[in-house]
């Protein structure tokens, strides 16, 4: 199991398009991907659960990956957050 703290830096918090980008990215990995915020932990592959966290812009969350390829998955997701949850070509 690996984890990292990242800041949500999208301009709209963890909502709308950025939330969708996260969910679609998380779905690609074999390992599980969880997000922890203010004591709640949810499955990053569920758009409804991610949205229900209501993470505001500038706040930090903990990313947790567990299983096959967990290190690569975590690195990829951290990079995605650093890019403001915007897809790169």
């Amino acid at each position: 199991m690996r984890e990292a703290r990242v800041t949500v830096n999208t301009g709209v918090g963890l909502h709308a398009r950025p939330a969708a980008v996260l969910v679609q990215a998380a779905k690609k990995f074999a390992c599980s991907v969880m997000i922890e915020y203010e004591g709640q932990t949810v499955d990053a592959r569920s758009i409804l659960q991610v949205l229900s966290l209501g993470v505001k812009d500038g706040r930090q969350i903990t990313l947790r990956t567990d299983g096959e390829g967990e290190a690569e998955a975590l690195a990829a997701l951290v990079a995605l957050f650093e890019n403001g949850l915007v897809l790169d070509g």
Partner: protein
Amino acid sequence: MPGRPSVEKRVIAEEVVEAEIARLHAALQDAREELEALRDRAERELGAEEAAIFSAHLLMLEDPELVHRAEQYIRTERCNAEWAQKRAGEEIAAELAAIPDDYLRARADDVRDVSMRVVSLLSGVPRAALSKPDQPAIIVADELLASDIAHFDRSMILGIAMQTGSPTSHAAILARSMGLPAVLGAPGLLDAVRTGDVLVVNGDAGEVIINPDAAELATWEEQRRARDRRRQELQALSALPAATTDGHAVEVAANIGFPADVEPALAAGAEGVGLFRTEFLFLDRAAPPSEEEQFAAYSQVARALAGRKVIIRTLDIGGDKHLPWLAQENEANPFLGLRGARLCLWHQEVFRTQLRALLRASAEGNIWVMFPMISDVKEVLEIRRVVNEVSDQLAAAGVPHRVPTLGIMVEVPSAALTVEAFLDEVDFVSIGTNDLTQYTLAADRTNASVASLADPLHPAVLRLIAHVVEAVRQAGKWVGVCGDLAGDPVAAPVLVGLGVDELSMAASLIPEVKAAVRSLSFADARRLALRAKSCRTAGEVREVLQQVTA
């Protein structure tokens, strides 16, 4: 007034539980196909924002939480899939609605919408029953979901009024895009209205007037007619082509800086986009735009134009604008320095990313691409080499793409004077009269002491334009004008008379320029252009043109 499929809970036998779950998944697959089709149609007919509503629905449809809960209900309650799905959807919607956040509460509507789509598929009760009343009517409901509205037949549905909902909801966004008068969030509406009542829905004021008396109704109808008339007049004028009295047509297109500019441009009568400035993607940000972001923007504009062409100009910036993510040297004279295509050839990674996005978008829409600040044919040869490399790379990776029709901006005098050489390498040119004038007259139009020298109607500029047009005609290619001069109705006779194929300008200027073109004959325009070219000063040219309108 619409109803919802009523869903009853039925207990099923233990042996068929797994089959019922399979039936749920089959319905989910059908729902996915419906939503994808709705999304694609919304993208084509309405826009990216409306299409995004259905993209969001798709994500929710596949949400493990929603699917899992529906499956759980089937198993633990041993019941039919319809009821399980409805229950799961309502529960999750309620959870979202309980969060004190407007955005999340609005998402509760989406969850219910998606869930009811699946329920409809499972129970065989179609939702389309709503979309066609038997006579033109206003739909009144407690709630209409975004995808209900998306199905509406606009010829039969005159307006909507909802007891719940808000002006910022997805339903409101769709209604607005479809031009459907709508009032949302009117408490007590259903108690006050009965089927058959006469209603006035005033979307602007957010009012629903029930059974107005004859006089009031007449006033409302007059208002509606006056609005329709005004809209039609504007439409008629702007929709006419710009053809001279003796039938010589000139394309009139729009200059745009953002995808959002397309709609107003089309409304103003633009026949295409003659200049799509791409700088908005590159300025005011910490890092250059990704290929995906660019591809999305270029495709969006091409789609919004529905087959009309868009001429996209590659990144056109220089030393006067400092980009944090680009290593730029300080230049003593940035306007005679590394800018436009020169800058792109210097920083090729950025250029290649833009080209990749452009080539990919060109496979999906009518896109031409032009390069700014071209002064020497070797620049074009180098650009073509890079374009071919990018194309080969995309082909090797199996990415759909097309090399678009390529052209250059003619804004540097050397390019104007030797345009024949360029016409061997590109298929069109667009004359940027702003910079062409400044470089030709050697005067900065932002410098008050010399600004009057930088007059685009100076004979020197007109002669350069004439030379370019002649060479283009000889080569059998295309020439447009995208500088400010194209949007000046006073200059229209000269430009038309010089024989340009197209004038491209800010949307708001289109109706007047079209009117100017329609007001004269091509024969007169040609005579005028000849006279203007042989004037000695810009002042003389303007006097000649004054006599036209007199």
